[in-house]
C-alpha cells in the first residue's frame, strides 16, 4: 500500500475540470472582447474612452445588485427583490435627506437600514418559515416596490446636497465614483468568497445542505448573512442610483432585475447553488451594459433592449448546458430526443 499520489500529480479529470473552469469564466471575457470589437467596427463612437467609461458607469449599480444575487444563488437560494429594494432604499434615503435639512449621513444610514431590514426579512422567511426563497423574494419585490412609490407619494423628489451627489456623479480622474465603488464591492466579495471560511460555507451550503448540516455548519446563519449582504448591496445601489440621477422615484431601476439576473446567468453561477463566482458576474454585467449601449449607438429602438437581454439569458443557459455536456444539439429537436 503506497500513499496517495503527490499533490503536483494532477489527474486527467482534475486537469479537465481546471481547464473547463478557466474556459467557462474566460469565455465570458472572450465574448465581451468579441462584442466590443464588433461594435468598434459598427460605430465610430463606441470605442472611445468616454463611451467605455459610460458603459462601466451604467454597469455599476446593476453590477452591485448582481453581485448580491450571485452570492445568494451560490448559497442555493435566490433573491429577485434586489431591484425593488434598490428603489425603496433610494426613495427612503432621498426623503430623509430632504426632510432633515440635507442630512446626507442620516439619509444614507436610513436607506441602507431599510434595505438590510428587507434582506433580513427575506432570510428570516426563507429559513424559519421555510418558504422557498423564490416566493419570499417575489413577495418582497412587490412589497418594496409598492413601498418605494408610497414613500414619495408617487412623486419624484430630488435636488440633494453636493456631498450626496458625489456618490453618483463624482469622478476620480476620469473614472466615475460609482465605478470605483462597484469595483471595491467586487473585490471584497471575490475575496470573501474565495479566501474566507464564510465563503467556503456559502459554497458548501449551496452544494449540499445535508452534508453541511451534518458537518455542523451553521446553515441558518450563512443563509441569513447572504440575504443581508444582498439587501445591503441593493441599498447601496439605490443610494448611488439616486445620487447619480439627482432624484429618487419608485420606478427607478425597473429593468435592473432582468439585467442583474441575466448578468449572473451569463457569468456562469449555477442556478442550483454551490458553484460560480462574482468574476463571471462582472463579465456578465459589462456584456449586458454593452448590449444596451450598442443598441443605442446603432439607433435600434430602445424597446428592443429588453427583448435582446431576455434572449441572451436563454442563449447563455443553453450554451452553459451544452458546455457541461448535459445537453446535445439534437436534444433540442423533439423527434430526435434520446430515450
Amino acid at each position, binding site marked *: 500500500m503506497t500513499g496517495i499520489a503527490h499533490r503536483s500529480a494532477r489527474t486527467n479529470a482534475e486537469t479537465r*475540470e481546471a481547464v473547463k473552469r478557466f474556459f467557462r469564466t474566460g469565455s465570458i471575457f472572450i465574448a465581451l472582447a468579441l462584442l466590443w470589437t464588433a461594435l468598434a467596427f459598427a460605430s465610430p463612437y463606441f470605442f472611445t474612452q468616454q463611451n467605455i467609461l459610460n458603459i462601466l458607469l451604467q454597469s455599476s449599480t446593476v453590477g452591485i445588485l448582481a453581485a448580491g444575487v450571485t452570492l445568494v444563488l451560490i448559497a442555493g437560494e435566490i433573491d429577485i427583490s434586489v431591484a425593488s429594494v434598490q428603489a425603496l432604499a433610494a426613495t427612503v434615503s432621498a426623503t430623509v435627506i430632504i426632510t432633515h435639512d440635507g442630512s446626507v449621513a442620516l439619509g444614507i444610514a436610513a436607506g441602507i437600514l431599510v434595505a438590510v431590514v428587507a434582506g433580513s426579512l427575506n432570510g428570516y422567511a426563507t429559513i424559519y418559515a421555510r418558504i422557498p426563497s423564490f416566493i419570499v423574494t417575489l413577495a418582497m419585490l412587490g412589497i418594496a416596490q409598492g413601498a418605494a412609490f408610497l414613500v414619495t407619494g408617487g412623486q419624484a423628489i430630488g435636488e440633494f446636497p453636493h456631498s450626496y451627489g458625489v456618490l453618483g456623479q463624482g469622478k476620480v480622474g476620469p473614472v466615475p465614483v460609482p465605478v470605483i465603488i462597484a469595483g471595491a464591492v467586487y473585490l471584497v466579495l471575490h475575496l470573501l468568497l474565495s479566501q474566507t471560511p464564510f465563503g*467556503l460555507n456559502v459554497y458548501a451550503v449551496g*452544494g449540499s445542505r445535508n452534508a*453541511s448540516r451534518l458537518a455542523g455548519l451553521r446553515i441558518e446563519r450563512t443563509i441569513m448573512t447572504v440575504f443581508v449582504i444582498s439587501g445591503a448591496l441593493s441599498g447601496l445601489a439605490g443610494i448611488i442610483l439616486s445620487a447619480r440621477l439627482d432624484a429618487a422615484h419608485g420606478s427607478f431601476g425597473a429593468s435592473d432585475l432582468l439585467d442583474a439576473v441575466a448578468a449572473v446567468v451569463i457569468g456562469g453561477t449555477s442556478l442550483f447553488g454551490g458553484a460560480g463566482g462574482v468574476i463571471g458576474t462582472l463579465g456578465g454585467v459589462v456584456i449586458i451594459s454593452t448590449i444596451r449601449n450598442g443598441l443605442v449607438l446603432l439607433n435600434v429602438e430602445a424597446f428592443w433592449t429588453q427583448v435582446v437581454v431576455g434572449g441572451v439569458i436563454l442563449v447563455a443557459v443553453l450554451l452553459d448546458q451544452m458546455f457541461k455536456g448535459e445537453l446535445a444539439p439534437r436534444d433540442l429537436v423533439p423527434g430526435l430526443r434520446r430515450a
Partner: protein
Amino acid sequence: MSLAVGSGPQPQPVVEARGVTKAYGHVQALGGVDFAVYPGETVALVGDNGAGKSTLIKILCGALQPDSGRLYVGGEEAHFASPRDARLRGISVVYQDLALVENFDVAHNVFLGRAPVRFGRVDRRRMAQETTTVLTELTVELPSVRTPVRFLSGGQRQAVAIARAVHQGGRLLIMDEPTAALGVQEGTKVLQLIEGLKSRDLAIVVVSHNLEHVFAVADRIVVLRGGKVAGSRAKAGSTHSDIVHMIVGADVGGAA
C-alpha cells in the same frame, strides 16, 4: 482486544446510552435501550430493518434527540442538540450517505466546516498537507487531494468520509453501513481500513447488515430487535447462527 470481563474494575465507557426511548408518532422505534462502548473496542450494531439501529445511531451523534433516557460521554451526562454538539464532545460519524459536498475536492471535504485559517484566509496549503497525511496514514490511495469527490468511486468516497472522521479526532467513531453501497473489492478495502483504525486510540461503532463484515471487524456484537437490545456477544465464541437467531428472535436451540 476483547474486554476483560469479570475480573478487575470495569473501565469507564467512552459513550453510554441508558434507557433511551424514541417514538415516531405511534411507532416506538426505541423502547428503552442501554448501550455502552468501551475504550479501544469495535462494536458492531446489528439488527433487522426497523430494529432501531439508525435511530440509536442518530441519537448518539446528535441528529435526533431521545424522548427519554440519558447519554453519557466519558461518564458525564451529555445533551446533544445537533451533530455539532456531539462532534464537540468527540463523537465523529461516517454517515451512510457520506455527507460529502460533490463540488468540493477531497481536502475541502475532509475539512468541511473546520477550515484552518491563517491571517484571516483559509489555509489551503495546510488543508492539502494534513489531508495527504491522514490519507497516507490510512493507506488510502487517491488520485489527488484536489480532485472533486464527484469524480471518485464509491469506495474512495467512503475513504474520504472516514478520513474526515479520523481527522476530526475524538474518542468515538460511528460508521453507518460503511460497506452497504460498495462492491466486493471496495468493501474489502474499507474493512481493511476499519481494521487499521483499531490501532488508534478510538472506540468504533459499526452498523451493518452484513454479518460477514461484522465478524471481520468487530470485537463485540450488539443485536437490536424491535427497539430493544436483544443481546450482546463477544465475537470470540459466537457463531453466525447465534447472531442470526438473536436478530430474528428465534429460540437459540441446537435444532437448526
